[in-house]
């Protein structure tokens, strides 16, 4: 299916919007009517046609505009992209992984022509046609990681693996859920996860690290994570909290359906062959409450999940103050009927919403 790239913004007037197709393929993160942290990893080897799982690096209607937003963030704050000196080889690994994957998965959009170390990369949506020497940084306008991540949706953490741990030693992070690469650079897995509540006590991170250290070449993995964002902001960084934090107070019962967005991260993990590093792409998808409610199953489930979420998690995810208003809105879409298991919308099989009496 041809992708119609939107011309839209994630700031200012917030003209970001999802098409009907984008809503149907939104990675709704709850597979049942409740949520708790888990090491919910699975293999990343395709998925249903047109789902965000289908390709190794999903390209959607927001691609061109997201890349414009990234360029704006990097122009304001170059420290959003950093690579410690020993990570350049991993950057080349990542460039190769993305170029090979995209040119194979989207041949109508991307082309890679290789003649030994002489590579030609064609990115039609962004109007790029560059020829360079693989492994020679002087032939690219940026370092290899920055070059390719300016052309790929999602944040990228490139993790060095040593001493039975992972180290945040490189990355491009402009669409993050309130964490800072500049703060975390050089930290290990336990250090950068230190602020997360409840999961340490459950031993989640020890098990997750063990899993990640064992991810092998050719066997990538994935999981979903989520939070809430008021207005379709990609850049919810600590650096800019003074700009976006205040927007959480602008919610009203009238505007919550269009302003409140469920923010979902498709997190994938690939072993990089030359460096033995691990790349951790974190792809952000946004969907407004109004759009989510067009799927009856998701309306029922989101209400139940948000209602029953432990206070610690609602606080950590930054919406504890707005939770009562969210529940007022969401309860109108929960008629008490059971929901099918799994994350998919199941539009053909799930019953439409019965009229809910307001209490």
């Amino acid at each position: 299916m041809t992708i119609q790239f939107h011309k839209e913004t994630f700031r200012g007037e917030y003209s970001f919007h999802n098409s009907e197709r984008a809503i149907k393929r939104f990675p709704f993160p709850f597979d049942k009517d409740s949520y708790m942290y888990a090491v919910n990893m699975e293999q990343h080897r395709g998925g249903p046609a047109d789902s965000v799982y289908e390709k190794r690096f999903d390209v959607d209607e927001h691609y061109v505009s997201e890349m414009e937003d990234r360029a704006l963030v990097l122009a304001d704050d170059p420290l959003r992209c950093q690579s410690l000196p020993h990570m350049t080889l991993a950057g080349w690994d990542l460039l190769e992984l993305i170029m090979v994957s995209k040119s194979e998965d989207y041949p109508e959009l991307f082309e890679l022509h290789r003649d030994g170390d002489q590579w030609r990369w064609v990115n039609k949506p962004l109007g790029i046609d560059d020829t360079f020497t693989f492994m020679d940084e002087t032939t690219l306008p940026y370092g290899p990681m920055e070059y390719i991540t300016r052309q790929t949706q999602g944040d990228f953490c490139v993790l060095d693996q040593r001493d039975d741990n992972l180290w945040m030693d490189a990355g491009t992070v402009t669409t993050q859920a309130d964490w800072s690469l500049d703060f975390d650079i050089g930290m290990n897995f336990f250090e950068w996860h230190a602020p997360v509540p409840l999961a340490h006590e459950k031993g989640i991170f020890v098990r997750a690290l063990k899993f990640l250290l064992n991810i092998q070449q050719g066997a990538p993995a994935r999981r979903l994570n989520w939070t809430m964002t008021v207005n379709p902001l990609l850049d919810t960084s600590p650096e800019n909290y003074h700009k976006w934090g205040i927007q959480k107070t602008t919610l009203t019962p009238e505007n919550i359906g269009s302003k409140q967005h469920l923010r979902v991260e498709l997190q994938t993990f690939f072993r990089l062959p030359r460096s033995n590093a691990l790349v951790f792409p974190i792809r952000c998808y946004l969907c407004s409450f109004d759009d989510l409610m067009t799927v009856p199953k998701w309306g029922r489930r989101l209400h139940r999940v948000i209602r029953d979420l432990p206070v610690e998690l609602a606080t950590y995810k930054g919406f504890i103050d707005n939770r009562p208003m969210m529940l007022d809105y969401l309860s109108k879409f929960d008629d008490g009927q059971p929901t099918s298991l799994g994350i998919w919308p199941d539009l053909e099989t799930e019953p439409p919403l019965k009229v809910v009496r307001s209490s």
Partner: protein
Amino acid sequence: MSGAEKIAVRVTEVAPLNELVTRFRFEPVSGGLLPTFSGGAHTVVEMRDGDITRLNPYSLMSDPFDRSAYTISVRRDDEGRGGSKFMHTNVSVGDEMVISNPVNLFSLDLRATKHLMIAGGIGITPFLAQIKQLDRAHGNWELHYACRSEALGSYVDYLTTTHPNDVNIYYDDQSQAIDLDTLLDGQPLGTHIYVCGPKGMIDWVRAKAAEIGWPREAVHYEEFLAPQPGKPFEVKLAVSNKVIQVGEQESLLEAIERAGVDAPYLCRGGACGQCETDVVQAEGEIIHRDHWLEDSEKAGDAKIMPCVSRFEGKVLVLDR
């Protein structure tokens, strides 16, 4: 399925180097390219030996950037259970085999200002790939390689010819030994040590480095243990509700697989930790042989690494 991804390959060269070591070259059956890898990686080679499937890890020694073929070198172990003997006597040019995608448990630390490599015998193989990787990146390295004799010095000629200033050879039968005190004392700040060879050599280097104050993180080592034969024993697998017999010449992991139970693994040599299994009940002695479990865990007998460890006694029940 357990283990790394599999690749179907054809043997395109069998090159005896000396009376103990033979080199094998694998090219993909598909005619395409093999995955690139990082220096220090190994592959697990599947050997169909009659009714037995052996899976042995071997370090990749070829240029990590050469995707046309992988090479490994196998040292014949006449005391072992037969994997290396199978490679030496049953594998010839043209054979099709299955190997795993590369897995690296002995990676270079790319932060190092200098890579100091210490090899013993067949332990030279991962360094051959690491040297090719470092040469391409103009890395700073130095190799100290101990062999039993000139006749058994695999790749000595190649190394001394291509890198006369960086390679130092020591022959046991000429009473040449690495002067470890001097070597470890004179290294620039930021040097990392890599050691691959017999257990005695690894222990010696690690102990000496610790004694003179090297950071633990700057000392890297790899030793794959071959599973040792032992007395047959019986095991109950609690989850799959099976009772299996482990033969004298097979490992516990192989016996579990033979019973049709899918058990996780990667290195099959007691190093990676992937096959760690909970012990439900043990009346007898677990013979722990791995490098993975802490001594306290071994003493508690609550876990076992079935790739290399065995059991002697009355009852062993595993959570598998």
